[in-house]
């Protein structure tokens, strides 16, 4: 009985001092290597690749932040800019193990729309356009969708100068929609849907930019800025709250539109603009008199041709019409058509006026309707 008990305590497998054959040992080593390989391949390699994807995503966020800054500069300064976006990359090669060759990313644009209600321009020429009726701007926003194999980082989104990253819940990375009483709304005029595993370079031309902005205030009802967005409500609430702006009185969200209500009785400076991948400019929308509307001869009559975003439009034809002779330095006539310069300015000089005369400057809008402003010149 005791010996049986001892036998139980000392199982055969422990007392057995025989070794396995070298080949069986080799087989066991190979199996151990196979198990270790599998563990590393299944548990560690995805981690390494996932970290690589996270690094790429962070780099892409930086690319978008740079993109935002460059678009802002392009709009404010009216100069083209280019940006490189690293849409995809090759996974790192790890000796003896398998990693996918590469991953790609898709950059796609989607519809953007800005509606501004109840805003009235302060200056006379502005008031005719910004008269409290709704102003609608359309353009596009950008979304980057990474095709990662090992992680699900979400998307990077660019909307109205704001960069956000995430999937179900987004966090803002860059962009100040409202800074104090200054509102800046940059838009894109692009249609892009590109999938690539390498770098993509985009050159943004100024579609509308280089303006000084306009001053607006409310028409008795608070100014509302309505943005069409793909970002969720909680993002906008958190983002706008984070701006700590005392001029935002309310934020609401409905069916993919966020409505930002501004405080009443405040004069705001509104900057807007757009960039495009094509070398094209926004059409002329209205004229802004940059010289006095009542002058005595010799009178320089200058207007700034502006687009819908209130930015100057170069090379736009402005027709000056009067009963007296006008000159642009080269031609002299009662009716002169002058092209606006790089700053969007078109000017003529009225020299020979008897008594008084009215000089009308006009443009033809995109919808073929004329837009006119008048100067009064005394002889």
């Amino acid at each position, binding site marked *: 009985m005791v010996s049986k008990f001892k036998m139980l305590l000392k199982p055969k497998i422990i007392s057995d001092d025989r070794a396995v054959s070298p080949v069986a040992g080799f*087989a066991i080593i*190979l199996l151990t290597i196979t198990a270790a*390989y599998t563990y590393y391949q299944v548990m560690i390699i995805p981690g390494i690749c996932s970290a690589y994807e996270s690094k790429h995503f962070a780099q892409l966020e930086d690319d978008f932040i740079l993109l935002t800054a460059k678009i802002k500069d392009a709009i404010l300064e009216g100069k083209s800019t280019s940006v490189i976006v690293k849409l995809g990359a090759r996974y790192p090669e790890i000796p003896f193990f398998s990693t996918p060759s590469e991953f790609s990313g898709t950059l796609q644009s989607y519809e953007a729309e800005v509606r501004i209600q109840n805003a009235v321009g302060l200056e006379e020429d502005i008031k005719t356009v910004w008269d409290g009726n709704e102003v609608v701007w359309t353009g596009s926003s950008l979304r980057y969708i990474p095709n990662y194999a090992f992680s699900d980082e979400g998307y990077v989104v660019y909307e109205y100068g704001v960069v956000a990253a995430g999937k179900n819940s987004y966090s803002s990375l860059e962009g100040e929609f409202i800074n104090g009483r200054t509102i800046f709304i940059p838009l894109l005029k692009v249609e892009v849907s590109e999938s690539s595993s390498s770098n993509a370079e985009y050159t943004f031309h100024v579609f509308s930019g280089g303006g000084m902005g306009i001053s607006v205030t409310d028409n008795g009802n608070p100014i509302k800025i309505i943005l069409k967005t793909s970002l969720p409500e909680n993002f906008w609430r958190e983002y706008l709250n984070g701006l700590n702006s005392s001029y935002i009185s309310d934020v609401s969200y409905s069916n993919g539109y966020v409505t930002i209500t501004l405080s009443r009785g405040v004069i705001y400076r509104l900057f807007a603009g757009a960039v495009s991948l094509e070398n094209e400019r926004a059409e002329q929308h209205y004229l802004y008199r940059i010289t006095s509307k009542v002058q005595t001869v010799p009178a320089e009559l200058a207007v700034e041709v502006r687009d819908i975003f209130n930015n100057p439009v170069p090379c736009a034809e402005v027709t000056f019409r009067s009963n007296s002779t006008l000159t642009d330095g080269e031609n002299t006539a009662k009716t002169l058509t002058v092209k606006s310069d790089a700053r969007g300015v078109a000017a003529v000089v009225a020299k020979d006026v008897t008594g008084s005369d009215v000089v009308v400057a006009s443009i033809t809008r995109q919808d073929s309707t004329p837009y006119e402003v008048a100067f009064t010149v005394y002889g």
Partner: protein
Amino acid sequence: MLSSILPGGYSQKLLAENRIRFLCADVSNPEKFLRNVSITVHVLMAFIALITFQLPLTFEAYRLLASLLMYASAPLIVKPVALSILSAKISSRREKIESNLHNALVAMLGFAKAGLTTSEIVREVATMDLGELSKEFRRVYYATIYAGMSLKAALLSVADATPSKELGELLRGLVGVSEAGGDVARYTEDRLSALEVSRKVWFAGYIGRIRPISEAYLIVTLVIPIMVIVIESSKMLMGKGSVVALKGIIYVIIPLTSFALAVILNASSPEKDVERRGMNLLLLIPAASAAGLTAGIVLKDAEFWGVALAVASSALAAILLERFIAEESKISSSLPHFFNRTIALVEGGKDIPTAFRIAAANESEPLGKYVKIVGVMLGSIPRHKAFAWLSNAPSHELKMISKVLARTAYVSGRLSDVMLAILGELNRIFAFRKERQSIARGLEGVMLVAFMLYLGICALIATYFFAQFSKFTLHPVAGFSINLAVLPTVKELMRHAGYITAVATSVGIAAVKGDMRFTARYLAILLSAALIVNTVFLS
């Protein structure tokens, strides 16, 4: 000359040159044999020529030429094919003769000690039912009775025409001894001693070979393929790797190497001619599997039903075979002890029936059941009939012993000498089996570990690796470098690899153990494990 190149034709020179080989192969009608081989080769080559004609070669003329060349080569192939078949037949006969040579010599010793003449010995061995060996002795016997040949001439004639060199030497020795009036009993005793030495060497040689072959099986059929399958599957999931290589390993390399090495292990085994009860039950497995596949096609899941019925049938076969295997194993391990006791009693002065009865009385089941009955029979019926009854026992060794003892008793031979010789052989077989079991045990463990590790790896890959790609299969995205269509393919290949590896492991363990009936037991366990893992993780 022309007729030799037509279907059914053959070279007369081929016939003349191989007269002795035809005798060795026991081909009684060489002309018919060669004619049949020639027709078969021509039909096969015509078929190959037809296939060649269907090949997508650029020019039709090439296809025609290649087809004609294929068929034209048929007469050239007849000779090597005929000689190969002949060699296989000779080899098969030699092995069958030599596997019974020891039993024949033991019986001959008993006959010679009892004073039987050489011709009487030849007659008794010829009627002993020792397969091809008895057939050779019958040729000697019939040559003396019906062909009027002298015993010397008949023995020398068969000695020249037998495929077994050892039998040839034995027969020539018998001629020499009986011609010179020598002691046949002494000669037989010496031959038996020499044969026992050569059998011992044979057993030792097999034991020496079984380890490297088994280890080669382990490495080539299981470990390296498992390693490559895992690596290639991982590569494929990463958008690399080769599906052709993976399929080649799973569907070609593993089955082929498994089959080849199992055949080598079995063919070189000293026990390959041992009759195994219930071997036919193994046919139940492929039959049930085929039925499952057929039913599965109707039920839209051929793989599951094919494997499920294979599991069920192998479990049933294992349960039925387990009793046979256990009984045979117990009888085989008890036999040396039983004969040891019997001989000790005989040498102590007891007569054979008494010694047999006393030894049988102390013998436990299952051997005890049979020897006790024989013990009772020995007191009431003729001894040869009592010993002949032993062939009812479910043991190959006991059947052979029964034949030798019955025939020896029938001619009033020296049973004690015969039993002593049998005991020596039984001890050798017992030691051989113990040695093989020892080798098999270690390799069985490693083979099972290899298989279970593969299943573990499958589960690991499915749980952690496939999950990485599930989001893409649900929402396919453009431009992704990994081909997601590969995922179901990898799953399917890994499932199939599990089943094929289960079969290869089961066959391998059974082959190393020297009894293919073990396949059912391991197949039931391993296929079940594979089916569960595949259903849970890889479906």
